[in-house]
């Protein structure tokens, strides 16, 4: 126990991070351990190349985009709190949360909306708040097998955009995005149990 708490002391501003992200002490330690393992030469931050070295990420079709999401606003490095903040999106939602939560407090990072927002910004490359047809096509190209022709991809993209597009601007706004997923159990599908 003593070793643990001394370990926790290594994490800068551990309490602040916990308050913001809702992670338990144990998970935070775990993540910090992982963070330092990723951080090749003890820089205290992670760079893109650190994350790109994770083997499985390279084959993930969305790997690059997910790496990018760790580096918002064109930053080239992410420190531990930034790292944890991103991962906090995937914390499971506790059932009793909405009733107990103080309405004045900001929405927790793992709320449905924030989970969706995270997914949305993976599509929205130019950060204009809209998934254009072009952006949709790019995602589809990543996701759909090579056997589907470009032409078919385009029609799928068209169709997908149209399906969600309600105001007729030919792009999917965040609102439309959430609406198209309103029947889906996002809380469950965007959570990882281990990140309690």
């Amino acid at each position, binding site marked *: 126990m003593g070793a643990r708490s001394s370990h926790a002391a290594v994490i800068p501003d551990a309490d602040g991070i916990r308050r913001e992200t809702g992670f338990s002490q144990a998970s935070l330690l775990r993540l910090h351990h992982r963070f330092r393992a990723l951080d090749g030469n003890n820089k205290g931050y992670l760079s893109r190349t650190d994350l790109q070295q994770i083997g499985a990420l390279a084959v*993930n079709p969305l790997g690059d985009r997910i790496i990018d999401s760790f580096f918002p606003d064109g930053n080239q490095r992410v420190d531990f709190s930034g790292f944890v903040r991103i991962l906090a999106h995937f914390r499971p939602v506790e059932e009793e949360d909405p009733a107990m939560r103080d309405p004045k407090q900001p929405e927790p990072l793992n709320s449905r909306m924030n989970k969706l927002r995270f997914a949305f910004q993976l599509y929205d490359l130019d950060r204009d708040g809209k998934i254009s047809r072009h952006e949709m096509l790019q995602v589809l190209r990543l996701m759909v097998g090579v056997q589907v022709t470009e032409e078919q991809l385009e029609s799928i993209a068209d169709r997908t955009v149209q399906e969600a597009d309600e105001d007729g601007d030919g792009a999917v706004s965040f609102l439309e995005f959430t609406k198209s997923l309103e029947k889906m159990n996002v809380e469950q599908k965007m959570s990882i149990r281990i990140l309690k």
Partner: protein
Amino acid sequence: MLGRWSGSFFWLVPSPSFRPQFLQFEISVEAFPSLRENGVVAAEETTQEPGAPGEHPPGLALFRWQWHEVEAPYLVALWILVASLAKIVFHLSRKVTSLVPESCLLILLGLVLGGIVLAVAKKAEYQLEPGTFFLFLLPPIVLDSGYFMPSRLFFDNLGAILTYAVVGTLWNAFTTGAALWGLRQAGFVASRVQAGLLDFLLFGSLISAVDPVAVLAVFEEVHVNETLFIIVFGESLLNDAVTVVLYKVCNSFVEMGSANVQAADYLKGVASLFVVSLGGAAVGLVFAFLLALTTRFTKRVRIIEPLLVFLLAYAAYLTAEMASLSAILAVTMCGLGCKKYVEANISHKSRTAVKYTMKTLASCAETVIFMLLGISAVDSSKWAWDSGLVLGTLIFILFFRALGVVLQTWVLNQFRLVPLDKIDQVVMSYGGLRGAVAFALVILLDRTKVPAKDYFVATTIVVVFFTVIVQGLTIKPLVKWLKVKRSEHHKPTLNQELHEHTFDHILAAVEDVVGHHGYHYWRDRWEQFDKKYLSQLLMRRSAYRIRDQIWDVYYRLNIRDAISFVDQGGHVLSSTGLTLPSMPSRNSVAETSVTNLLRESGSGACLDLQVIDTVRSGRDREDAAMHHLLCGGLYKPRRRYKASCSRHFISEDAQERQDKEVFQQNMKRRLESFKSTKHNICFTKSKPRPHKAGRKKKDGVANAEAINGKPPRDLGFQDTAAVILNVESEEEEEEESDSSETEKEDDEGIIFVARATSEVLQEGKVSGSLELCPSPRVIPPSPTCAEKELPWKSGQGDLAVYVSSETTKIVPVDMQMGWNQSISSLESLASPPCTQATTLTRLPPRQQDAEEPQALLDLSSDPHPSFAFPPSLAKAGRSRSESSADIPQQQELQPLMGHKDHTHLSPGTATSHWCIHFNRGARL
């Protein structure tokens, strides 16, 4: 066992077609009793009898009564028939079936029938034989459930399912057995029940397993949420291995006598659990692999595809049974494992065939099982009643099931993302139905070794009846009362599918980042492995693409759109923009306009528009434009669909390709027109031309001819029209008419009856695009105008109009059949050719004359005067080269077809046909 099987297998060979294959299964069921009595040879004689009279009677008998030769199969067929008729009767009243599960009704029916049989024959007959049950009745049900198991859901909950199946079953068996033994020791069970601890454990092991048949029968009607369903149902399937092992181990211990059991035997018992379960699963996976691989090479022999699925799955079952592994597990894994690849490989029709045959067999087997259960219960000679034992068993299985579920759930919830709540646990405990497996196992007991067998039989029957009837009856109200989350069916949307995939990838990536190799990590790994190696190996190249799930959803949405589009009258192009029925949020104004409906269906006999005078005039504009659009784009079949008599060959591959093309092109077209509608570009014109009578189309959806990079719309309507001549087709038609009456209409062209006004035409030229999109904004509705534009208006009265008021469709009488077919063929893409006669429809000559100058104008002003042809020529040529290999094949495979037919099968001739039209067109 294998000997018997090979006996019936022998009969499969001469007639590898779909129907005989289904019959075969019946025959194997039927043949079984006689097989048991007389051995294989006798069975072969029995089944052979209808075809070839075996012996030569001394004198020529005019009439011979041969009941004994057909008795066994005849009786089985009769029983199945009775069961099916009973099902029909039950379902006559919706109220009864909504309250009482079918399985209860069937058991009760079986009781009644058994009573009748007992009263008439004075002895109990037609009982559930364990051999019949395990070899013939159980496999189809398990295959059905394995094959149609939602695999994603199954694997998402695999941990819970395995826990309940293994730990839960062990727990139930031991606690129930031990508690009953305690009851016996305490004197609550009469001492005439001669059973020791091992006997009770044996009984506990057979009574403890939740039965897949019973669970499926009840839960399918209850509609609890998917997670709950998959857990209970998955448990019932997977616990088979545990049940089999426990049963066998206990049985051999009992036979050895408890004194002789050594410690090594216990260890062997534990080891056999792994051998039986993993072995069974491995057998299933091996056969799944074989099955997938085999179907990869069935392109030329589509007809045996469904047969292969059943044969190999059954072979998996029998192989596992032979090696005394868990056969249920083998079939489940086989179905689960092969589905993805098989579905991709086999043709659409085979898919439908597999689906229906599987469902038919499963439901048939289920019906028979429950009915025979009822009948078997009547036989009192097997019974020996002991109230203490019966009551004790009932209470214990309920109590220990509930306790086991609670304990296991508590442990599981520590690891589950979404914990199972109390209500789920109640349903899971209460849903532990026992069924025919337990009954068959208890019947199999050896009375000399297990002296209390009769008591066990009685108890098992009571337990099965209690769980199926009482729990089956009450579980629905219970679920309602507890407000268990029901399953909700919503239509899949492309967005959901896409985003779901995104989420999966995100989660896998996050697990990578976190460095935790959890479920998502391994699933992602598996998917990559599958994509890289397995799918490459097991799917044929052409099928590979279609299996992409996003594409799959897209494809299905298109089909559904097309269907509902047709259903609601094809009102897609309207001033409000595109309304695709599958798009959830759009307020689609489901107005009916017959023309669009007729057009879009493309089905038919009648493409004429003269049928409507009920349509409001404002709509007529749109109709006209829609008409032009569709006319211009209607897919011209290059070959005809034949009524094939060959049993070796049903489908033509080209046909499916054509179907797919039809959908793709159609959707592309609609999307394009949607875009242009939105941007308020428009217009087109197209120049309608009176032409040939309605063409039959199987796919029922309009399609573009042009696919080689050119917008299909460039295929100006007028161009096509200008070069197609009905004179030609009529001549041909007459030639054909004597030979094949039913087919002659098939080759007819499309009637082009609408004309565009010059104003529209000009707009089209100005816009420079040949986009065909009508909009009321551009064409103000006016009756006069409409009349001008809708030439069929003047032709009113030529046709009888049939208005079907129960739907919003207005369909001319002579189209009804084609209409229905086109809708159904959308679903299956596999309906027989529409052979209905076309009563249509030449345009009034007056109109033709009126159009003449306009046609010339069109031809001269059109920027691509010759475009109509290149696409279709190019396409025909392309398809010829593609299918040239198929032609000889088809001829070979269709020996029964007339000589003339080949002309229609070969795209080459279709091309020349078009050429002739072209020439004639120039003359015109």
